[in-house]
């Protein structure tokens, strides 16, 4: 059983961070469970986890129960996702807003693969558009590439002007 990734978790780095957060949370939950069993008073502060990790954890708990063992299974499932999921890299002309990132990732997970991991990068020289690296291929749909490919037309337009 594999966990389905929420749109907030887009890249392998994001997933790694979430796994670390979940590991801290699981460790905290384990300590709390042991203290509860042995009757130790006092309670440690709950680790702060990101909304993406919270959503992932709640979704997982609904299906697999709210236990430490279930949390460990979730972590193992996420590690399997990192190891086995395809990765694509999208380079944009600037740092992408969260909404744009989420929309792009949602499209990728809907059309390409459910657990595809997307790494975002930015390169100002692209001017616009994007460069997508998937597998062994690089798709350059940037404005810079368009200008370079249509340099002659561009100069003709300038000449007409």
């Amino acid at each position, binding site marked *: 059983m594999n966990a389905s990734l929420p749109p907030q978790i887009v890249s392998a780095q994001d997933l790694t961070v979430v796994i670390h957060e979940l590991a801290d949370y699981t460790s905290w939950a384990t300590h709390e469970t042991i203290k509860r069993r042995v009757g130790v008073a006092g309670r440690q502060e709950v680790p702060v986890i990101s909304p993406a990790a919270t959503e992932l954890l709640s979704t997982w708990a609904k299906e697999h129960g709210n236990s430490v063992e279930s949390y460990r299974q979730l972590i193992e499932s996420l590690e399997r996702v990192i190891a086995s*999921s395809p990765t694509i890299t999208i380079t944009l*002309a*600037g740092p992408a807003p969260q909404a744009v990132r989420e929309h792009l990732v949602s499209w990728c997970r809907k059309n390409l*693969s459910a657990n595809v991991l997307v790494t975002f990068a930015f390169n100002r020289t692209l001017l616009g558009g994007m460069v*997508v690296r998937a597998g062994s291929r690089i798709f350059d749909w940037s404005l810079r590439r368009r200008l370079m490919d249509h340099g002659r037309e561009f100069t003709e337009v300038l000449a007409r002007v």
Partner: protein
Amino acid sequence: MDWMQIFLLLNVFVLGGAVFVAIEHVWLHFHPREEIDPAQPSGVHLPMAVKERLLRVAETDYEKVLEDSVGDFHGELEGTTKEINTQLSKLSDDIIAEEMDRYKKTLDELRGQAEQARSGAQSEIEKHQLELEALITERQKALETKFVERHTALEQQAEAEILTMKQSYVDRIDKRLADAVTSFLSETLQYNADLGAQESYLLSELEKHKSELINEVSDER
């Protein structure tokens, strides 16, 4: 055998006859022969004095006849010699004239042959000269044709090279211009790239190349 040789042979024959007569006279003088006249009786006896007188008269007559004969012979011999000399002179003149004529004729023939040879050589030279001129003209035309062809080829090559260079310059100018405009846009837009406005474009590009992306992702997985 021409007439001169016949004349010489005739002279030799006459001279031989004269020499024969002279020798016969000399022989009869020194070897007298008694003529026996059968009509006269052999028993006539003359006195000695008459006989001696007759003998002297006969000797005298004989000597006179002999002297006359020698004189005649001498005269004829002189005439013959003169005639022979004259004829020889004439013959020599004729021979010389004939030889001169033959020599002149030969010279004329040789001159004619030489002239003919010279004319032939001249005509050969003229013919060869004409052939050489024709050859030179032909070579000149061939060279001119080759020169024109080479000139045309060089012109075409130069035009092609100029056109290629011009196109290269145009391409370089276009590329430089495109680079300049791209750099300008890059400098201008580097902080103003509105990715939010590009979202629909980005999604449409992804949608356009969906199948290729699916293939790549499937291969990776």
